[in-house]
């Protein structure tokens, strides 16, 4: 790791991010502005999450990085290799072995523990942005707790489609106060945000915002009494491990309309197959990775 300060960022930057993180934890769901830095990767590749992770890491950490649930995609592999190099920390693909998990657009299926920190990469942190483009106005709306526009939007969905059509980045209310964008996780994951034993941190690099959910915080998905929130998933078992409780990716497998549904959480799927679970398209024999 010679040539780099621990975890890449300089100390002045880490102090600035750390102060923002403490205020974010003290005001759950409120977006704290921070002076996001250029990182050695493009915006949209997780620069916010990377800066939050860098400010939190200690040498004893074991880091897991997932992209849409997978440990083996370019984004996840690159960020893991980045921190292995600049912070000299251990990495893992197993949720249970990780002390810090950086994630793009999923929450792992395995329940998180008190000794873990989940860091979300966030593209657009402002849940009201597509309803009101002006930052001065959305800031006022949060200050005045004026969230009527969001409910109108959800109501219009029901009027038009018969249900709330938002399937990801589904807005939540934190401790009955701030409306928050949970990042583009599928709404299937929303219930995992609530009363979670792990600390959850959110970093938006391009938009320069940090926010947080302390452990055991009340997080409710917005809904109506007669149209209650429902966490949905495709109505299939995983084709590889047979799981009926996990979030699934739909994969097109030929040019004749063939498709399969597989767990988006690769570690969860591997664990289940290693334990002998078989889906209908599982290989008759496979050697499982360690």
């Amino acid at each position, binding site marked *: 790791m010679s040539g780099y300060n621990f975890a890449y960022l300089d100390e002045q930057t880490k102090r600035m991010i750390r102060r923002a993180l403490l205020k974010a*934890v003290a005001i759950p769901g409120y977006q704290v502005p921070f002076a996001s830095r250029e990182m050695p990767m493009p915006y949209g590749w997780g620069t916010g999450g990377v800066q939050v992770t860098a400010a939190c*890491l200690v040498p004893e950490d074991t880091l897991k990085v997932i992209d849409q649930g997978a440990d083996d995609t370019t984004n996840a592999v690159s960020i893991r290799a980045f921190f292995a190099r600049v912070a000299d920390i251990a990495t893992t693909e197993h949720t249970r072995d990780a002390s810090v998990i950086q994630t793009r657009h999923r929450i792992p299926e395995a329940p998180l523990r008190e000794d873990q920190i989940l860091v979300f990469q966030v593209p657009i942190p402002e849940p009201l942005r597509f309803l009101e483009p002006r930052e001065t106005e959305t800031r006022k709306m949060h200050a005045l707790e004026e969230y009527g526009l969001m409910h109108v939007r959800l109501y219009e969905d029901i009027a038009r489609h018969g249900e709330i059509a938002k399937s990801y980045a589904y807005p939540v209310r934190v401790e009955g106060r701030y409306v928050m964008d949970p990042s583009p996780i599928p709404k299937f994951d929303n219930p995992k945000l609530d009363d979670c034993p792990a600390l959850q941190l959110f970093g938006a690099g391009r938009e320069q915002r940090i926010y947080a959910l302390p452990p055991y915080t009340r997080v409710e998905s917005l809904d109506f009494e007669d149209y209650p929130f429902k966490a949905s998933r495709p109505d299939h078992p995983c084709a590889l491990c047979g799981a009926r409780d996990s979030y699934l990716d739909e994969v097109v497998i030929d040019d004749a309309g063939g498709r399969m549904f597989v767990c988006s959480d690769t570690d969860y799927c591997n664990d289940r197959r290693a334990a002998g679970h078989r889906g209908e398209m599982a290989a008759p024999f496979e050697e499982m990775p360690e």
Partner: protein
Amino acid sequence: MDAAALSGGFANPAIDSARVFREVLQAMARPGRIARISGVGPPPGLSPAAAAVLLTLADDTTPVHLAGPCDTAIIRDYLRFHTGAPVAARGRAAFAIGPWEALVPIIDYPFGSDEYPDHAATLIVEMPALAATGARLTGPGIRDEAYLSLPEIAPFRENRRLFPRGLDFIFTSGDAIAALPRTTIVGAR
């Protein structure tokens, strides 16, 4: 300047401050939980825990208020040399440090606005001791309930009423720290 003020910083600033911050972060995320931090040798009048928090979080962008017995020449020099933080009056402070009696009344410190509630001070309260007894704490970060030996109860309740504005507190004693963010509901035991 007393030469003693020049020593007593982190031996390995990047690593030591990372470890301290992680404990402070978890303390703020889990109000009432008591952790131990170390790595610095502060001058007399400053606990190792309070000094470690300041050296981890304060710099030339964060005015620090030194209250009562913490406002000594050697502590000023120590703070200036190791952090570069300007010493400031209560009304401009990002951090304030001192024993509770010297810090109050808490209304003197910046507690943020409705639009920017994060522009609020963090008070580092030097305590004779820290124990998981006394005031009953509930709220975000606490599964059921927690207890912490707070110096008083009423000011923390007033602070909670300002939410989302308000002050956040870090309590230090020797090498022990605990925290109380503005969200915590404080009750009598």
